[in-house]
């Protein structure tokens, strides 16, 4: 009853193609934006920011990136961790060399650098498909991490091999480094994510997004229609890596503050983001957010329930967490392989009919 399209007629194609054609959807999104930008900052504290909000937002950005490549374009990638590293190391070098450009341009630049690297490692996709492509991305993953570990230039020849973010300011407020202002950090990251999520949605529903999905669904038929696989696949790699690179830059500079390549960006990171888009929903912007929220919140919830609630020993809790992740992955794949986003859509369908059964 509440969620119905009845009475909402569109008089032209422009309205029909709006981002949120159903009025109720628009209100929900506006409400979410309101909460995000007006209410949460007031309730913010350091713990919430660092343990939940920042990782959620940053991983959502990375999940958006991977979803573009794997969800929309169907190219499986296990190299997300390494590409985040590219973004992180790019922004590190840029911050130490040309900080005058300003933080936001530097993040965007690191995204562009990552896009270039991603396109390069995406070249094999023109010959290789499916699992085999996953191997190519694994090559990227292991090679790049090795590179960042070995070549001193990347970490400015520092003895430990770690990179640390120097303090940067935005409009006069410090946003990186130990003395950064939490609210400022939040606004920066939330703003970034909101803007680029919008861009992703726009691209996905336009010509380029359709071409990606065509390649994913039936690449031969797509080619015969005139979709050029080269352009489609490489553009997917490029845009995806752009997003993942920026996520990596923010991950290092704003959230972690310092990072070491093998710990922060290893293959487990790649799996983590992959799980986010599977659980959240492949080929869905909303799904990227839902999946990121789920995978960020779950360990925290589990730890709270087990260690604080039941008094479980921490090591045991860690093992149980691993098992739970595995079981949930399998469970999700069985119950709804299209993820939380599909469940949400089904829920909306039911809401259209409520309180009637059918």
């Amino acid at each position: 009853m509440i969620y119905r399209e009845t009475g909402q007629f569109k008089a032209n194609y422009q309205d029909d193609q709006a981002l949120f054609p159903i009025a109720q959807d628009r209100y929900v999104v506006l409400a979410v934006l309101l909460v995000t930008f007006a209410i949460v900052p007031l309730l913010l504290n350091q713990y919430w920011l660092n343990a939940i909000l920042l990782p959620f937002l940053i991983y959502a950005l990375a999940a958006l990136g991977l979803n573009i490549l794997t969800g929309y374009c169907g190219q499986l990638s296990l190299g997300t961790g390494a590409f985040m590293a590219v973004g992180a190391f790019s922004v590190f070098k840029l911050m130490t060399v040309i900080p005058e450009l300003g933080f936001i341009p530097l993040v965007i630049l690191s995204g562009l650098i990552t896009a270039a690297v991603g396109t390069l490692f995406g070249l094999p996709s023109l010959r290789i498909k499916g699992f085999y492509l996953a191997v190519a991305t694994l090559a990227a993953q292991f090679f790049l991490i090795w590179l960042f570990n070995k070549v001193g230039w990347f970490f400015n020849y520092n003895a430990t091999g770690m990179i640390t973010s120097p303090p940067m300011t935005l409009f006069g407020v410090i946003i990186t480094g130990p003395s950064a202002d939490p609210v400022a950090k939040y606004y920066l990251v939330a703003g970034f994510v909101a803007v680029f999520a919008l861009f992703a949605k726009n691209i996905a529903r336009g010509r380029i997004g359709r071409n990606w999905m065509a390649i994913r669904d039936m690449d031969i038929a797509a080619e015969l229609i005139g979709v050029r696989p080269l352009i489609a696949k490489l553009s997917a790699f490029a845009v995806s890596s752009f997003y993942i690179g920026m996520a990596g830059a923010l991950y290092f500079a704003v959230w972690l503050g310092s990072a070491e390549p093998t710990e922060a960006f290893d293959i487990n990171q790649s799996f983590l983001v992959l799980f986010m888009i599977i659980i959240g929903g492949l080929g869905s912007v909303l799904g990227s957010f839902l999946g990121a929220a789920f995978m960020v919140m779950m360990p925290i919830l589990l730890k709270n329930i087990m260690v604080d609630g039941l008094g479980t020993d921490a090591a045991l809790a860690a093992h149980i967490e691993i098992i739970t992740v595995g079981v949930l992955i399998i469970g999700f794949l069985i119950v709804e392989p299209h993820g939380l986003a599909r469940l949400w859509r089904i829920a909306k369908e039911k809401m259209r009919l409520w309180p009637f059964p059918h």
Partner: protein
Amino acid sequence: MNERNVGGEMLKVENISLSFGIMKVLDDISFDIKQGEIRSIIGPNGAGKSSMLNVINGFYHPQQGSITFKGETRKQMAPHVAASHGIARTFQNIALFKGMSTLDNIMTGRNLKMKTNLFWQALHIGPARAEELENREAAERIIDFLDIQAIRKKPVGKLPYGLQKRVELGRALAAEPELLLLDEPMAGMNSEEKEDMCRFVLDVNSEFGTTIALIEHDMGVVMDLSDRVLVLDYGKQLADGLPDEVRNNQDVIDAYLGIPHEQA
């Protein structure tokens, strides 16, 4: 009956031979298709009909022979080049993009008409938006033509078989092709659906002037619709001519058509 405006030669296939390993799929095939005509390709299963279409499309590359399309001769061309030169097609085993809606599938068919780059697409204003709307209108014209308004937002994977075939036709038409290759468009349909599809094929030819090459097994349809018929069997060319000629050709009867029960 078939009073069509048939023009000059549009496609000429010369001595095409295609093999996969030691398996010879097409053996020295030569024929032409004239502008504006409806040409059928018939023959038993495995005769190489779909492979012939794939060669024209640029998907299979023949070992020998050449194709001349609109005056340009080439041994082979990349599929997207064939598409951009005005060749579109449907497939035997429906190759729709199952993850997308009817409208999106047809809009994807408009892909070659759309050009705005990534930057404008991300912002979705100005040129990108205008282009999207313009092509939406074109897609809607096709949706009206094929009478599929009711299912335009439905994911095609959920549609019944007959409707999927119609959507696939729509996607091919969206590219405004000069040559339309239809691979068994009526397979698996009942007689009502077949009539509808026949009507669409004829309309496409008469309203848009599209040249059509058609693979089909229903002889009634073939004889009624076509201007000329090509018969293939085991990769070889058996006959090529007017429907009546082909119907009475002894080789064709032996290989494929058979004879009515009374005469047996």
